[in-house]
């Protein structure tokens, strides 16, 4: 099973409940499930062997639903175990890609953090329209709230003023809780930038945008050799973001509500949106004490003192 758009990029090593809007690239919502210590998390190209804690899950266990990782025949007690089946589903992402030819961004949207490929069974076009909708849901929500106190002549223009207060809307609309610009600074560059977090639905697109913002269009050689434009469209969207996978000299960090600086990518996208206050692209060498990408500990967010 391929990983939809995210295809062969940064698939997370464990299939535990990934956040809303995430591509498969992002690591998992481990914080909610502290007993998943045995799960291997990573943001690399290939899966760190799946299976996680699921090997012996009996159908009766409620824990079934919690994991939401690639479920294969091996999870059923009466089946013959197949060592590769649980990792294979996502690893296929490396080779295959979406079943249809689409633009790169819609391809990215079509696999918003599904921990199981092709599940729930919703057609790609609907996923795209949901992803696009979620961006405007908040605006619409704000509009409808404001409208009650205003005349119906025109819609209120200053809805965005209210958007920085995210908490009130978190409950009402599931997906994006915020719609706002945050400052981004990169080590070594005196002038900072601003990026609209609500324009993204996953870490991957955010990271790519930042890369382009600060480093110009990347000149990484991808599999451009193929003349098949389908393939190009696929690789364009599946090329890993260096900021996220640890292969660059820089890492992407953010300051959260409590003033701590955290590594971007640990928590589900929505949670990130709710807590991020500003971003910093930090030199990897400065990021001392930063845990390696493959985590051995359980659920808590990594924090780092600057």
């Amino acid at each position, binding site marked *: 099973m391929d990983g939809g758009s995210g295809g062969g990029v940064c698939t997370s090593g464990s299939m535990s409940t990934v956040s809303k809007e995430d591509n498969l690239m992002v690591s998992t919502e481990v914080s909610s499930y502290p007993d998943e210590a045995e799960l291997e998390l990573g943001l690399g190209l290939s899966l760190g062997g799946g299976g996680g804690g699921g090997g012996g899950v009996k159908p009766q266990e409620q824990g079934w639903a919690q994991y939401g990782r690639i479920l294969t025949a091996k999870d059923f007690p009466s089946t013959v175990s197949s060592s590769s089946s649980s990792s294979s589903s996502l690893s296929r992402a490396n080779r295959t890609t979406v079943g249809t030819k689409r633009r790169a961004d819609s391809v990215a949207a079509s696999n918003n953090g599904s921990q199981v490929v092709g599940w729930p069974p*919703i057609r790609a076009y609907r996923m795209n329209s949901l992803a696009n909708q979620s961006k405007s849901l908040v605006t619409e929500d704000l509009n409808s709230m404001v409208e009650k106190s205003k005349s119906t002549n025109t819609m209120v223009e200053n809805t965005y003023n209210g958007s920085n207060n995210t908490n009130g809307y978190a409950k009402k609309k599931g997906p994006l809780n915020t719609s706002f610009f945050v400052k981004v600074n990169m080590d070594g560059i005196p002038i900072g930038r601003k990026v609209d977090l609500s324009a993204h639905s996953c870490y991957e697109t955010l990271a790519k945008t930042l890369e382009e913002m600060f480093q110009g269009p990347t000149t990484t050689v991808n599999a451009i050799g193929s003349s098949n434009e389908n393939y190009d469209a696929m690789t364009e969207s599946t090329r890993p973001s260096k900021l996220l996978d640890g292969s660059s000299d820089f890492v992407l960090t953010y300051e959260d509500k409590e003033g701590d600086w955290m590594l971007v990518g640990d928590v589900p996208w929505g949670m990130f949106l709710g807590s991020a206050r500003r971003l910093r692209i930090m030199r990897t060498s400065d990021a001392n004490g930063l845990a390696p990408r493959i985590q051995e500990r359980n659920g808590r967010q990594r924090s780092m003192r600057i």
Partner: protein
Amino acid sequence: MDSKRKKDSPESNELTRSSPFPDEVLERVLGLVKSHKDRSSVSLVCKDWYNAERWSRTHVFIGNCYSVSPEIVARRFPNIRSVTLKGKPRFSDFNLVPLNWGADIHAWLVVFASKYPLLEELRLKRMTVTDESLEFLATTFTNFKALSLLSCDGFSTDGLAAIATHCKNMTELDIQENGIDDLGGGWLSCFPENFTSLEVLNFANLSSDVSFDALEKLVSRCRSLKFLKVNKNITLEQLQRLLECAPQLTELGTGSFHQELTTRQYAELESAFNNCKNLNTLSGLCEATPLYLPVLYPACMNLTFLNLSDAALQSGELAKLLDHCPNLQRLWVLDTVEDKGLEAVGLSCPLLEELRVFPADPYEQDVVHGVTEMGFVAVSYGCPRLHYVLYFCRQMTNAAVATIVKNCPDFTHFRLCVMNPGEPDYLTDEPMDEAFGAVVKNCTKLQRLAVSGLLTDLTFEYIGKYAKNLETLSVAFAGSSDWGMQCVLSGCSKLRKLEIRDCPFGNEALLSGLEKYESMRSLWMSACNVTMNACRRLAKQMPRLNVEVMKDEESDDSQADKVYVYRSVAGPRRDAPPFVLTL
């Protein structure tokens, strides 16, 4: 009708004819038989009827493009004007089938060009269609009228431009839910200025802007336009102008329902909808805000199909809207309406026959909203005619489903998707076996079933025992052993399509269906426990089946990760890509 047939088929000359009807009469009568199933039955009666049927058939439906070749089709049916073709396995909609798998229409078009030069209609589902093919279609078939592409891929808006440019007699252009490259909206402007024949236009899923000027002029001059579905970029103001040009519309898909309007614009929009007394289908309403929904009310009286699956409405908004739709038969909504919204459905829509509830946020694990079993139960109480449901939810109980099917025993299509794989009855923690047992026991007319939740083999025992009219079954993350699948294969005599993913069914199950698969359209099994050897055995013993395997790179050599088995008179595929192994 083509009269040269008489000379060509000596066996139907009057001397040897056994039918009491002259051939012309027989053909005339049979020409009125539309259903392709009936036509298949007719063709089996006797040779005369077979011939009369084949000469009089103008529309052919091919459910699996690889089950037959275009040459065979053309040989049997000389007078086809309309073709419906389906290609890839259904799970390709959910990214389970790699790109470039096949189902390319081009080979068909080439044959049609010589055998059916007067072809008028082409309806494709899950096929690969390139721009070259579209151009070929547009320039070769001078009589071409209707093109419908659903869930297809491989083309871009350039191909649409070719269609618009060359097809002078187009009545229908229906581009739905396709994975295409949207290179811009210029294609719409390619319809010539003297072009007036369009009756159906659907470009709702395209994302680029079309020239509104071109669209408005097109809509104005196509007086027979009945179905119009525009994309999100069309604003409310533009919509109003379109409606002014085309109050005769029976099906409307709006663009974005979200724009700043002045009071006057609002009134004009309301008036425009007021003039659309013929609307029976309404969709679109993207990003609808409650502020503007009331403009729809005057147009809703005759609505039979309301598709709100692009509009994240809340329960109150839905309830108010439904108050104005007394004749609703089909309703599609997002689960943002929640159980409360579905209660309103139960109260306001007594004639409802079909309900589809889609998840607004399918990957959210912690969400506390969406719909639950309560909403479904509420609908079942209020809508006894309900026979088609597609329901995405996060929790369900056996008891609720039992109540639902008791209230609505006429289900023909029951597709329940509990979104967490392997989710048990959340109240009792038991498997959901009894739920689906209730469905198959109560709903004797059931044709299509999709199961979900925590299920053991018992579910499949029930299905095999009771679902005697079942034709399509979709299974995911369910079952305990081969026995489950065996029950289905041996019990469901009318089964035509079986699609399975991530279940513990293995070789024994696969091979138990040896005799069965030739009576089915297809079988799909992925991420199950089937080995290559078993597939080879199947292929060897059943030469009229195509047994195709797609392997994952990382899996070991003996595993058959994705298996697709289907009957075919055309033999193994000749266009299979390297990753499809035909055994």
